[in-house]
């Protein structure tokens, strides 16, 4: 198996990496860069826990090889806000009790961010559609949808 050089910009910071041919973006983020906010649930594209924004598009990082991302920009949940200055979406998730166990939360936040980046004022149907690739086993989704609505209002 070969190794390949990859230049990757993650949350605005550039990394020069060497990766195994079969290394997934999810593994690189979690193991090489120690950005463990991004979670692995199913590993086969079905749960969305691993969602990140790659060159402006929401993708499952378990289904992308890092070597395919040479020259790309990646946004993960770590780039959203800081503990002292939360992103409006993060604050809204807290305010609306949109987090229970928290496992889906990083994926939900990135899905919501990708949606609001494209559509700052989404309808409820558009929010549900935008979040439909992330599964939550705890909340029943309502609080999450409400939180995204609130964050969208906030942003204006």
């Amino acid at each position, binding site marked *: 198996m070969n190794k390949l050089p990859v230049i990757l910009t993650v949350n605005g910071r550039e990394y020069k990496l060497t990766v195994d*041919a079969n290394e997934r973006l999810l593994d690189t983020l979690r193991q090489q860069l120690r950005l463990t906010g991004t979670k692995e649930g199913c590993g086969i594209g079905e749960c969305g826990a691993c969602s990140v924004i790659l060159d402006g598009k929401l*993708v499952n990082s378990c*289904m992308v090889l890092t070597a395919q991302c040479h020259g790309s920009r990646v946004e993960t949940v770590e780039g959203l806000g800081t503990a002292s200055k939360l992103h409006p979406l993060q604050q809204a998730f807290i305010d609306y009790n949109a987090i229970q166990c928290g496992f889906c939360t990083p994926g939900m936040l990135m899905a919501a961010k990708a949606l609001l980046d494209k559509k700052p004022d989404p309808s409820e149907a558009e929010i549900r559609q935008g979040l439909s690739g992330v599964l939550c086993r705890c909340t029943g989704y309502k609080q999450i949808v409400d939180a995204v609505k609130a964050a969208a209002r906030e942003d204006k």
Partner: protein
Amino acid sequence: MLEFNLYRPGTLQEALKLLAEFKSSARVLAGGTDLLISLGSREREDVKNIIDITSLRELDFIREEDSRLRLGPLTVHAQIADSPHIRQGAGLLAAAAAAIGSPQIRNRGTIGGNIVNAAVCADTVPPLLALGATVKLERLGESRWLPLEEFITGPNRTGLEADEMLTEIAFAKLPATAGWGFMRLARREAMAIARMNVAVILDRDSRGRVVSACIAPGAVLASPARIPAAENILLGQCPDEERIHQAGQAVAAAMTAAGRRWSTPYKEPAIIALTERAIKQALEVEWR
């Protein structure tokens, strides 16, 4: 995940050269939403070399020329669903692409991968069959065009040779008078791969009589195909409930003629209902 060597060719020519060299030990990697799963589950031990084509911009295009639409195989489902050219000239393909997986899958999964993977219920395939799509296959120094129904030869099987790539998909735009329908049945709304789907295109004359009909179901026959027996029931008619139902039954009959399985009692009424709905969706378009 399976261990392999990964190559990142900068041009289509380079990719074809690599394929010519590696032949059946190589696979092309597009969006990876099918391939990476099969490499992850190690069901493809024979694969030693992966050729990443995601950066070949020359394979990522939607073009309208004369009255034809031409798509590059790297076009992702989200682009197809949003493209004004496709929504206007091949609405059923846009509808099928919009129904696939989740936003994440639509942002990554390509039309070329959907076709070459050739799952029995690949959502873009019935619309493309109904549109009469042809596909361009290229190997180093050579290319050929095939009708899509000849290209797909069975479940997960195509006529693609080991050193070939799919490089274009083309079809004629629908006439303004044509109506279309696309229906799918999945276990849940998002992220569920369709169990069955059907695409319908109907063109009618000024008196509402069907002058051309395409009915193409997926997951009904071993390889997707139009069902002429169902189309003939509508041809020359102003279809009423009874005719529409008969057309649905003809699709179900084609399915049962190909063999009964444990799932047949469930699939039979379902495909009849899906076909009826797709026909009605196609007929709702007002004749202009």
